[in-house]
């Protein structure tokens, strides 16, 4: 039985905070909430990289929406911590039946939406049913196994047609967000949730401002407002920070650590993340349909040098990153060995290959330069085609018209794409699909994770793709600031506990 009362959640959070302070790149201890005197009227300015196209959390894809809107503005029955643990949120408590078919949540009382309306059990039933039944909503399919959603008093019951070990996790994401029934808010430009912040304003092309929700059901934020400033250029972000215009920079370049830490006002934290630098192979066409060619490419690439060049992150040799269940060290599958790579290519009769790498131009050139040089060493000429993101979506993702593709996949627990033969990975292995289905159907976490690990090993052994690195969340934080998460902040950036020094 999975049962997690709130106290355990608090303990987990505390443990997470300890973990976090251990992750910082600066040897000096960071100021904590107890050391600085919080300024309740503070405005905290955080630099982010990618601005959402619109704010419609139901219909519009993009990690940029999840990153700021979930947890801060919108909430679900359950939430996830930066360390990827599932904790109660709008539900004060929850229970899963031993057969994995019944999920029972106790809904908190006295929760208000930002427009002042009270959250009712009917809102919960309506929200979840609407997601499940509206096919154009992102993540609609994640509730496909939920047969019925009922409310009895404050008790919400989800009955499943078959067990789904990913359901609780999915409820911490978009699929589980609780909105107000009959609300007329235009979600594209406005928001009405239950979270600790309200959407104050969105200046498109510039910034999004959140204000403290004075009627929040939980601990109210200790800052008056948080401004998310969108600034893609790292150099501009650096100069802005040095001129005192930002309190924190996310998505920072670890190679600029020395410059930003120089005057002692900032410290760079390297947090773990589920960012997977994925080099996809189009295995539907020659020569990449030959596993020896794919293996040769993997063994030709020096992952350590990529991590060194990026200045952050770690190596990852399989589809599952260390933060996710099912992780295991797969470095033995295709270790760096140019000699072996050349031999494999010769064996496959694929010498003097010429391949094209299609990637989004926003990723910069560090990784592609290393790939060109590494592959050149084993006799593969790599042409780099850096394109706009919509072009990548169209050519690679939709039309699967590519040789090699590089994407930083940020989403946590996204193994399902390896079990989907239609996905742009072009990977189709029935054994992997079976193991994944069994993992989803498992009723305990350990079994589910074990099955994922088995499937992940096969994916790596098939050389379905290469994993160039597991990125780090590089966050530069002002010494005036505490309580900002530093783990996996490309996915989620909860600012509920941020404090700013009064001095």
């Amino acid at each position: 039985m999975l049962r997690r009362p709130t106290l355990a959640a608090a303990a987990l959070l505390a443990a997470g905070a300890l973990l976090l302070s251990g992750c910082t790149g600066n040897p000096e201890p960071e100021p904590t909430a107890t050391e600085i005197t919080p300024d309740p009227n503070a405005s905290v300015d955080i630099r982010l990289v990618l601005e959402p196209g619109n704010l419609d959390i139901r219909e519009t894809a993009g990690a940029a929406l999840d990153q700021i809107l979930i947890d801060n503005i919108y909430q679900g029955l359950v939430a996830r911590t930066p360390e990827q643990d599932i904790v109660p949120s709008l539900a004060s408590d929850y229970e899963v039946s031993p057969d994995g078919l019944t999920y029972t949540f106790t809904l908190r009382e006295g929760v208000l939406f930002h427009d002042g309306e009270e959250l009712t059990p009917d809102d919960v039933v309506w929200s979840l049913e609407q997601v499940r039944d509206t096919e154009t909503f992102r993540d609609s399919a994640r509730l496909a196994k939920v047969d019925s959603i009922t409310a009895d008093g404050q008790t919400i019951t989800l009955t499943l047609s078959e067990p789904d070990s990913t359901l609780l996790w999915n409820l911490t994401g978009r699929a589980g967000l609780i909105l107000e029934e009959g609300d007329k808010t235009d979600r594209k430009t406005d928001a009405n949730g239950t979270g600790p912040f309200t959407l104050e304003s969105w200046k498109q092309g510039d910034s999004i401002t959140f204000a403290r929700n004075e009627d929040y059901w939980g601990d109210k934020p200790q800052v008056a407002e948080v401004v998310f400033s969108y600034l893609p250029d790292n150099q501009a972000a650096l100069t802005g920070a040095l001129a005192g215009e930002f309190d924190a920079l996310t998505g920072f370049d670890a190679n600029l650590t020395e410059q930003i830490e120089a005057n002692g006002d900032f410290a760079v934290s390297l947090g773990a993340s589920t960012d997977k630098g994925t080099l996809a192979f189009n295995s539907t066409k020659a020569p990449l349909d030959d596993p020896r060619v794919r293996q040769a490419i993997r063994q030709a690439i020096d992952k350590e040098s990529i991590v060194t060049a990026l200045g952050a992150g770690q190596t990852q040799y399989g589809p599952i990153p260390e933060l996710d269940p099912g992780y295991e060290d797969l470095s033995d599958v295709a270790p760096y060995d140019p000699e072996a790579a050349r031999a494999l290519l010769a064996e496959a009769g694929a010498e003097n290959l010429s391949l094209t790498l299609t990637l989004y131009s926003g990723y910069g050139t560090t990784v592609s330069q290393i790939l060109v040089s590494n592959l050149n060493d084993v006799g593969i000429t790599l042409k780099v085609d850096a394109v706009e993101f919509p072009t990548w979506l169209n050519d690679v993702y939709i039309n699967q018209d590519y040789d090699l593709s590089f994407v930083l996949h940020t989403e946590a627990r996204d193994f399902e794409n390896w079990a989907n033969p239609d996905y742009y990975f072009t990977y189709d292995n029935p054994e992997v699909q079976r193991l994944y289905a069994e993992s989803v159907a498992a009723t305990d976490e350990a079994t589910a994770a074990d099955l994922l690990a088995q499937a992940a090993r096969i994916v790596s052994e098939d050389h379905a793709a290469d994993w160039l690195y597991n990125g780090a969340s590089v966050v530069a934080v002002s010494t005036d600031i505490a309580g900002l998460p530093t783990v996996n902040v490309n996915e989620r950036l909860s600012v509920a506990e941020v404090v700013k020094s009064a001095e």
Partner: protein
Amino acid sequence: MIRYALTRLALLLLGLFVASALIFLTLRVLPGDVAQLIAGVNATPEQLAAIRERLGLDQPLLAQYAAWLGGIMTGDLGSSQLTGTPVIDELLQKAEVTIPLGLMALTIALLVALPFGVLSAVRRGRPDGTALSVGAQTLAAVPVVWAGMMLVIVFAVWLGWLPAQGFPRDGWDEPGAALRALLLPAITIGVIEGAMLMRFVRSATLQAVGQDYVRTAAAKGLTRTQALLRHGLPNVGLSIITVLGLQVAGIIVGAVVIEQLFGLPGIGRMLVEDVGNRDLPKVQGELLALTGFVLIVGFVVDLAHRVMDPRQREAE
């Protein structure tokens, strides 16, 4: 004069119509669409088709163009497919940054170009004149991005006098802060555009110096500088106005680059983001508005030329 103005206006409208067709078609060549972006990397083909239908992207191109053109006729530039916000609202909001930025840059360009251009012409052949001339050539060749970064490092990071990036959230409700935010970007564009303009001023002045009327004026007792100021400058002014009309387009291009560098929420930055989002109705509305602006400036310059130059009026 009236006939000239009417002919010129008809030309302007024709130009706008051709521009609208070109803008519409060129944007359709871009791979990818906004529906794919909304759908993201986990959508099924059915979901994608549903989004396309909702946005009207499944309509034939000609129908889409006709709908857009019809809207423009009634004063509707269209609206964003992502946020539903009317293009005109967005343009007006971003113009609060870009128009003052352009005007400041233009003023700075003139402040640089006029005195130094005339001076370098008058002092031609002497060390200071040559130095000015070489300086202008060098400055005109400097990339905007590099110049901007140098200015930021000196005036924002080292000296701390001006902000390194951004625009006050309250905009022009904080006039001081807004002006300070635009100063470095305006200097960056203004000095470089000014250096280019300075070469025109120099050559126009040189030409004027050699003209008979200046010589005659000098012969009638004016000093060379007096002759140049009284009789040469009006002629120089005419060619400068023509070049300035072209310069406006240069400043708009400069604004696209500089708004990225300084994180300014202006039209240039919006345009780049909208192209990246494939929000085509918004992009085409913005581009048409910008094209219209440049064409209208050209129109006004041509008319001004007519009014100021008696020779052209008499030729009619």
